[in-house]
């Protein structure tokens, strides 16, 4: 409990560490999402071109 409260500074310290974790998760998620979207868009375009040929 002592290590969690950090002499009254706990809310500040833990908020910073949690915020950091959230930012890393968002960055990773957005990078994967962007890759998947681009890949799927190209897939759809190739399929559409294939259907018209």
């Amino acid at each position, binding site marked *: 409990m002592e*290590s969690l409260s*950090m*002499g*009254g*500074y*706990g809310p*500040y*310290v833990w*908020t*910073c*560490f949690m*915020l*950091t974790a959230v*930012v*890393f998760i*968002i*960055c*990773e998620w*957005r*990078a*994967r999402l*962007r*890759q*998947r979207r*681009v*890949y*799927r*868009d*190209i*897939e759809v*375009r*190739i399929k559409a071109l294939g259907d018209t040929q």
Partner: protein
Amino acid sequence: MWKFIHKLASPPHFYGLAARMVPWFVLPGLFLVAYGTYAGLFLAPMDYQQGDAFRIIYVHVPSAYLSMMTYMIMAISAGIGLIWRIKLAHAVAAAAAPIGAWFTFLALATGSIWGKPMWGTWWEWGDPRLTSELILLFLYFGYMALRGAIDDTVKADKSSAVLALVGAVNVPIIHFSVEWWSSLHQGPTLIKKGGPAMDTAMLYPLLAMILGFTLLFGALLLRRVRAEVLFRERRTRWVKDLILSGRSA
């Protein structure tokens, strides 16, 4: 040497290489961040002036350093793309911007949270370090907005590269602001004459966090550049072959 650079700048080569490189950044990065977090929170001794609030340093300093380093990567890549017309360099610049913006936001947010118990205020407009870091965030936003506003990729690359290069002047201002002007922000602790002004029990976790953050940033950048390369090369034969071969994204 030139042959190697030429090969590295080839989009299909880079696309495959980046995928293979990502785990080499992620695994040691996660290990270092896990060690740095544990040691920074539980093993490092309390600061005699700031108490346990100083532990925010373990996420604030790496974020702030990455916010500036990412901008320099973006500006240098944009410059290389502009001068030598290397498409991959523009892709790197475009991919770095959103990551840099997130780290700048993180540096500002953690700095503000640290400022409240230490300075008694969340924000101080007159402070040069805080204000110049906020300008950095606006530069990232401006860069991304400019890119987004121009449909033609070549024109977007050129215009945004000029903005990235002009904005690079802000990076040394951020770094030296605490030396040039009076600031609430503390002076340099790590990079200073006579070596770091920290005990090794505090210093090693911080170095681990800086290196760990850098490696994880490298992995994020590689992922983003891959997506950017795929988008830019979407009409090429190799991308079509890649999609048709059904290899995973």
